[in-house]
């Protein structure tokens, strides 16, 4: 059997902080290690990433009985998502990668939902005989969502990641929803725009609560694929993906901000 790369994934771009580890040898007692060699820790307290993420990295290695030397790479969810959350994960990943001298795999956060450990067709209300479109939506405020459209298990987007006005996104999604497809909505955008989504007239279901938000095991699944493709960077070059300029920068570019002398 081929050796599975040992990758530690860090996810802090959404409401829940989580870490996941691949290449775990055998089931770990008292933990959720699966037969595929994955271990995942999820902190259920929303937005306590700064406090929890570094201890969680230590904890998952300890639980798996593994040493930093065994890691092949650190994976990090690069965004989009909460600006602050993206940066906490990225700063944490950079520090661990720098100290442990490991490469970094930057995982596109929206695409990671195509790798979520869930069978869309088993979701309650999912119509029989059709295929799912994976639709991650993050609340981007200002009536927008950071969103894309994906097929399960495929990182190439059917609708490219972007900051969309919700009606615009739904229109574009509608064009992709042939009669044999149903949308599966993920992310905190489901809560922020629930009514709009429900009244969109598009065939859809909402992801169940346990896989609704960003999760490290999904990042890890995609990271393994990116790792095999050699898509590696390091602590100096790993870049977050905000999908939006800082407000002041946007205003400056739009000429709405007076330039200082």
């Amino acid at each position: 059997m081929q050796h599975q790369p040992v990758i530690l994934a860090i996810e802090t771009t959404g409401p829940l902080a989580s870490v996941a580890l691949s290449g775990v040898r055998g089931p770990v007692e008292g933990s959720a290690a699966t037969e595929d060699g994955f271990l995942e820790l999820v902190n259920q307290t929303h937005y306590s990433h700064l406090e929890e993420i570094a201890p969680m990295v230590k904890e998952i290695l300890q639980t798996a009985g593994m040493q930093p030397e065994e890691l092949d790479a650190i994976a990090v969810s690069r965004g989009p998502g909460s600006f602050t959350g993206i940066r906490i994960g990225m700063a944490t990943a950079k520090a661990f990668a720098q100290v442990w001298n490991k490469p970094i795999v930057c995982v596109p956060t929206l695409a990671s939902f195509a790798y979520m450990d869930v069978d869309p067709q088993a979701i309650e209300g999912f119509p029989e005989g059709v295929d799912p479109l994976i639709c991650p939506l993050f609340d981007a405020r200002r009536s927008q969502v950071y969103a894309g459209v994906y097929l399960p298990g495929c990182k190439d987007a059917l609708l490219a990641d972007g900051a969309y006005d919700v009606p615009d996104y739904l229109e574009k999604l509608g064009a992709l929803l042939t009669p044999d497809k149903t949308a599966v909505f993920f992310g905190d955008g489901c809560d922020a725009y629930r009514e709009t989504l429900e009244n969109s007239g598009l065939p859809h279901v909402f992801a169940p609560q346990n896989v609704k938000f960003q999760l490290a095991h999904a990042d890890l699944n995609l990271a393994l694929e990116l790792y095999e493709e050699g898509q590696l960077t390091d602590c100096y070059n790993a870049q977050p993906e905000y999908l939006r300029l800082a407000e002041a920068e946007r205003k400056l570019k739009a000429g709405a901000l007076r330039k200082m002398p």
Partner: protein
Amino acid sequence: MPSSCGCISNMKNGKHLTMGIESSCDETAIAVLADGREVLSNVISSQIEVHKVYGGVVPEIASRHHLNNIPFVFEHALEEAGVTLDDIDEIGVTAGPGLAGALLMGTAFAKAVCAAADKPLVGVHHIQGHIMANLLEHPDLKPPFLALVVSGGHTHLAEVQGYNEFRILGATRDDAVGEAYDKVARVLGLGYPGGPKIDKIAKEGDPHAIEFKRVYLEQGSLDFSFSGTKTAVINYLHKEEQGGRPVNAADVAASFQEAVVEVIVNKAMMALDLTGYSGLAVAGGVASNSCLRERLQKACEKRGAKFYIPSPIFCTDNGAMIAAAAYHKAREGHFATLHLDVWPGLNLESGLGKLEQ
């Protein structure tokens, strides 16, 4: 671990090494300190140029830059010190007060470094760091003493009762002194950051050309208020503009500075009287202001009080001051856990316990 320089750990030499990480505003700064005093490296990556165009620090942009800068600053700090992370005995980081998103970057990075390398972590109050910057160059200075902190975000008179024990005697009720400088510089069209620009142009002006309002607050108060003086400057400029009279920017800058410096010096002397301390230690970015430095020094000399002030490089936000504070905190056992949070409004007198949760 960054070891690209191939340095052998020859600077350790049995010394106690402290790393200090600072990112509370717009400088990403990391330093390595030996035995709490000897600065082996003090790397500061300033974002002044980035924020200039906005006329002030933009928090979101500052946070983005901290994230990009910090691995480079970390590596350079070790390289310049000629040590490896293995040699470091503890890591101190500013966890407040400051811009939340900016504080987060240094703190998240520091915690992960400590977790990765099993190093003790020390949470440092930014003002505590500024005050302890005085210890770097003044071996005779030990608590208790009186400190005056003047910076872009803070104006404090504090009794330094111990290395981790402070009593606030006075603080600003509105603008920090550096903030007032920035705003006045903006209305004078001098640009950002305002402090050094006003300091420079004021040298060519008459400090008594315009008698701007001095705000002393109620009798005996050691608190500060600078927004009234700032507003007086703005009103004056409006009035002159409406009257079609040309404004002498140097006179305005000098007169504004005179009003501010006079109040600060008098309040600092009042605090010496009240506390009975024989010396004053000044700290913070505005401590680099030449007029303030000179006037404080003269006032101290006049009354025979000792006067301490860090070199300008340790007045600006820097990692060495955080390392100095962390060194003394560590010696007294004030360590943080890896669960350390950031505290944008952390109080110097009552908030230090939060850094040990």
